[in-house]
C-alpha cells in the first residue's frame, strides 16, 4: 500500500524547477534530507551541479537536468528525463521564475516582448510542465503540484507589473487545476514564500537590508510543514509562509 505523500516524504519522487539557488536550492536540500528522490532543473550547469553534489554528500539522491522551463521544446524532455531517472513523479514544484528586465519598471515602459517572456517562464512553462506530468499523477491517483507565488500577485505594486501579472495568473491556474483535479487524488497548492534573502530579491530591490529578509532554508522548512499538513493546507489553497508562521505561533 503506497504511503500518502502528504504525510510521509521518504522515498517520494520530486521535480523542482529553478533549483540551483535561493528557495529552489533550499527546497531541494530540505526534501533530500526528508528522503525524497529528486530531479532538479535549472539553466546553469555549475550552480546546479553544486547543489546536486551537496545533496549527494549528505547521502541524498538528486539528478540535474539542465533546461529552460520557458522553452516549449524542453518540456517533454524535462518530464521524460525525470521519469527515466526517478520513476513516476509524486511532487512537482514550479519554483523557477524570472523578474523580467531589471531595474523593475512601469508597465508603460515595459516592452510587450518582455511581458511575453516573463509569462513564458512564469506561467506558460508551469502550465506546460504540469500538463506533461499531472496526467500521470491523476491516473495513479497520487500527486502534489506546488506553484510559488508572491504578494506581488495580490498587491498592485507599481513597477512590478510583468512579474505580478504572471504570479496572479499562476495563482489562478493553481486554483482551477485544483478544482478540476478535486477527485483525482492530485493536490495543487499555491505558496507565497514571503520576502527572502535571495538573488532574485536583491535584483528587484538592491537596497534591501538582508537582516530583514527570511532565510530560504527557514522558508523551505515551513513549506515542508505545509506539504505534511493537508488539513491546514488543503488542495486549492493559496498559502502564505509568513501568515502560516504567525498562525502557528498563536
Amino acid at each position, binding site marked *: 500500500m503506497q504511503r500518502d505523500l502528504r504525510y510521509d516524504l521518504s522515498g517520494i519522487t520530486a521535480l523542482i524547477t529553478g533549483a540551483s539557488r535561493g528557495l529552489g536550492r533550499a527546497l531541494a536540500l530540505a526534501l533530500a534530507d526528508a528522503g525524497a528522490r529528486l530531479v532538479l532543473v535549472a539553466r546553469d550547469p555549475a550552480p546546479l551541479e553544486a547543489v546536486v553534489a551537496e545533496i549527494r554528500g549528505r547521502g541524498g539522491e538528486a539528478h540535474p537536468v539542465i533546461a529552460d522551463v520557458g522553452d516549449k521544446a524542453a518540456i517533454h524532455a524535462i518530464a521524460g528525463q525525470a521519469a527515466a531517472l526517478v520513476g513516476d513523479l509524486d511532487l512537482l514544484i514550479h519554483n523557477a521564475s524570472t523578474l523580467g528586465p531589471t531595474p523593475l519598471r512601469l508597465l508603460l515602459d515595459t516592452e510587450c516582448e518582455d511581458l511575453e517572456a516573463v509569462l513564458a517562464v512564469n506561467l506558460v512553462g508551469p502550465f506546460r510542465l504540469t500538463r506533461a506530468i499531472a496526467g*500521470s499523477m491523476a491516473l495513479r491517483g497520487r500527486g502534489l503540484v506546488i506553484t510559488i507565488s508572491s504578494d506581488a500577485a495580490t498587491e498592485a505594486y507599481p513597477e512590478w507589473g510583468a512579474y505580478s501579472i504572471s504570479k496572479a495568473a499562476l495563482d489562478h491556474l493553481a486554483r482551477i487545476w485544483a478544482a478540476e483535479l478535486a477527485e483525482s487524488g492530485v493536490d495543487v497548492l499555491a505558496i507565497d514564500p514571503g520576502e527572502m534573502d535571495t538573488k532574485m530579491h536583491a535584483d528587484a530591490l538592491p537596497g534591501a537590508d538582508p537582516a530583514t529578509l527570511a532565510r530560504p532554508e527557514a522558508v523551505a522548512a515551513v513549506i515542508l510543514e505545509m506539504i505534511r499538513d493537508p488539513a491546514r493546507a488543503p488542495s486549492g489553497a493559496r498559502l502564505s509562509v509568513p501568515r502560516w508562521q504567525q498562525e502557528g505561533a498563536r
Partner: protein
Amino acid sequence: MNPATSPRDARADTRLLVVDPDGGGRLDTTIAALPRLLSAGDLVIVNDAATLPASLRGRRDGDPDPAAAIELRLTGAGAPGRWPAILLGAGDWRTPTERRPPPPILAVGERIELVDVAGAVVLAAIVVDVDPRSPRLVTLAFDRQGEALWAALYRGGAPVQYSYHRAPLALWSVQSAFAGRPWAAEMPSAGRPLDWRTLGGLRRAGVGLARLTHAAGLSSSGDPAMDRLLPLPERYAIPEATIAAITATQARGGRIIAVGTTVVRALEGSVAASGRLRAGVGVTDLRLGPASALQVVDAILTGMHAPGESHHALLQAFARPAALLDAWGHAAGAGYLAHEFGDSMLILPARARARPAHAA
C-alpha cells in the same frame, strides 16, 4: 485505408468503430461516446508508457561518408547498460522505411558516434552484440550513464518518424494524456485518443480505470527479415493496484477492456509466464493469434489495423477473421483513417468471458 497524416488535437473526436464479436453488431461513433458504450463495473486498462526519443542519427566511428550514415532506433532496455537497437541506413523520415538503403554491417566492438540536429556529437556507443538472426539488430553500450545518458538521448534523439506524415513529429505529439516513464520506442497509440474529459466520463459512469507500463517496441524496420523477428521481448510492469482492480472486476462480472495491444500482451504475457496474473516487472514476447485463449482481457480498444499487419493477428484472439475483415471493409469504405493518429476500433463482447479466476 488512408493513414492519418498528422496528429489530431481534438483527441476524443477520433472516430470509433464498435464491433460485437459474438452478435456481429457494429456501431460508428467517436471516442467521446466511450463512457456510454461501457457499463458500470467494467475496467479500462491503459499503458502509461511515455514515448522515448528513440531515433538517433550517427555514423560509424571515423567514417565521414554520408552514405554510411546510420539511424538507430532504440527498442526498449535490455540488461542494465545494454540497449537493444535496430539499425537503418541513410535517409530520413521522408523516405518510406522499406526504401531506405541498408545500414552498414557492424561488428562487435565497433563504435558509433551519435549526433544532434546540428551535427555535434552527443553520445557514443559500442556494439556489444549482433543478433545472429539479423545484422540490423544489435545491442549497444553507451559511453555514459544516468543523467548524462538521458540528457544526451533527449538532446540527440527524436521520436520515430513516419514517411506518410506531412511534417516531422515533435516529442509532445506522441504522448498519451497520462504518459509517465519513457519506456516506449513508439507511441502506444491506442491510448492517444483518450482525453481527460473522456476519462472523467468513464469515472462518472462507474467504469474503473487502471494502468500498467509496457515498453511498446518498434512496429517495423523496413527490412522484411528483421520485421519477422518483431515483436522483440518487451518489458512491462503491472502495479498491485491493477491486479486488485482486475480481480474485483472479474468477481462482479465486469469486462476487462485493454487499451491497446501492448496492454493485452502484458496481461496475457504475465499469465503465460507464470500461470497466473502477477504484479511486478516482466518481459514478454507473446504473440497472440486466432488460437489464443484470452485469460484476462475481454475487449480491446485499438487502432485500425489492416489484415496482414502484425497487430491484426492479435485481434483474431478477440474476433473471428471474417468479422474482422467485414469490420475493416466497412471502416475503409466509410473513410476511417489508419495508423498512429488514425481512428479506433473497439471489439466489445456483451459479457465478460467465462473463465477460472486467475488472481494473485
